[in-house]
């Protein structure tokens, strides 16, 4: 399975939960808190649900609450994908 990138996450955020006016998703958002980007816990739950389906991983709702930045989602997904390959 190929690597999960920040761009993959950007695309999912755009199509599944939308983007606030004045937020530049293409900027260096890796370590910016989701709350700062305008995303609440429900938005994060929807994003994680989409990631789970499209990349066939299984991040639970509880685990998702620990993922507070886009970068942490990318690392979590790639960690799970590496386990699958092994």
């Amino acid at each position, binding site marked *: 399975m190929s690597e999960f990138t920040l761009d993959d996450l950007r695309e999912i955020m755009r199509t*599944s*939960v*939308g*983007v*606030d*006016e004045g937020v530049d998703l293409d900027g260096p958002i890796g370590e910016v808190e989701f709350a700062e980007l*305008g*995303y609440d816990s*429900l*938005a994060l*739950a*929807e994003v994680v*649900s989409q990631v*789970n*389906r499209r990349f066939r991983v299984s991040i639970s709702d509880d685990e998702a609450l620990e993922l507070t930045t886009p970068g942490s989602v990318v690392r979590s997904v790639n960690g799970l994908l590496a386990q699958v390959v092994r």
Partner: protein
Amino acid sequence: MGVSAVDAAVPVVTGIGVVAPTGIGTDAHWQAVLSGKSGISRISRFDPSPYPVRIAGEVPGWEVTEHVPGRLVPQTDFWTQTSIAATTEALADAGVDPKELPEYSMGVLTAASSSGAEFGQHEMGRLFTQGPDWVSTYQAVAWFFAATTGQLAIKHGMRGPSGVICCEQAGGLDTMGHAKRLLGMDDGTRLIVAGGTDAPLCPYALVAQITNGKLSTVDDAASAYLPFSAEASGYVVGEGGAILIVESRESAEERGVDSYGHVAGYAAGMDPPPGSERPPALKRTIELALADAKIRPSDVDVVFADGAGVPELDLAEADAINAVFGPGGVPVTVPKTLTGRLYAGGASLDVATALLALRDGVIPHCGGFERLAPGCDIDLVRGQPRQGPLTTALVLARGHGGFTAALVLRRDQA
């Protein structure tokens, strides 16, 4: 100024926002109404050919991204989106920037009926064909009755008394009546976002409505919905509605803004169960609303009728109007003939139209037919608008299941 405490609490309407089959925006709607331009046509949102009902009033030229912030689009049904658009227009019309007012002094009261049916159908489809993991997280907040009130309250930072009223077609008037009550309570509430919109056009919602047996199956947009007519065959459904900014007169005067008029009286009633010997609630509800407004029937200049389009319901409404006002004693109009019945948005849009009629001194007409049904001997305004000074309008609404409401609107004297 010597404004008494009672006068200070009088609810005035300072802003109107419209999204309806007659157009997006109050001006577009009012121009369409005055020119008799109908928004009813063949359903285009989905293929209606398998259903016995194939025409409806659809909002023309809707582009969601023009009206709804990006983050709200995936989490809202079209019903909520039309309310968001109408609220933006209504607040601007009232000159209100919610950020400048105390958050607990503003509330949101919308009517809901179909709620987020289309959103719900889409997600239920995914549940049944793909499984629970495929259902949008936003199903949890998008399709239930309070979704629109909640989204509006969050978006505009309004934390005062809020709620949702589910009385089908009567609900729009009930939000106005409830706003009147809240503004009279002297608890710091100064402004209520009231009214409502609806979005009953998806297969799931349509088949649920068809079971009530009151929808017209006449497949012609011009003759399917003819309330009080000898050719009445049921009603046509439509989407959209209106949002009204209702605030205390004291609040409007403090902000230095004009109003379209004030909510002078309101009453609600409930029909007796089918088979009962007791009469329908409408006549008594009209009398109570006039009493609440402290006016006589002869003070009313125009009645915006419920106009069910179902012969026995039309006759019952004509009987109630004639019993209160005398046969042909007051001009009656049904602008719904241009939009269809919008459920939660229907009476709300009638309130908007009535306020515009008071402002401009013109009663909009209903077109499309010649002969009144036997017994419906009311002064129905037909053919062309009727000009003349107007001070007081009575708006009537009845919802499926017996909900009944009457609202008295009066123009503020200059």
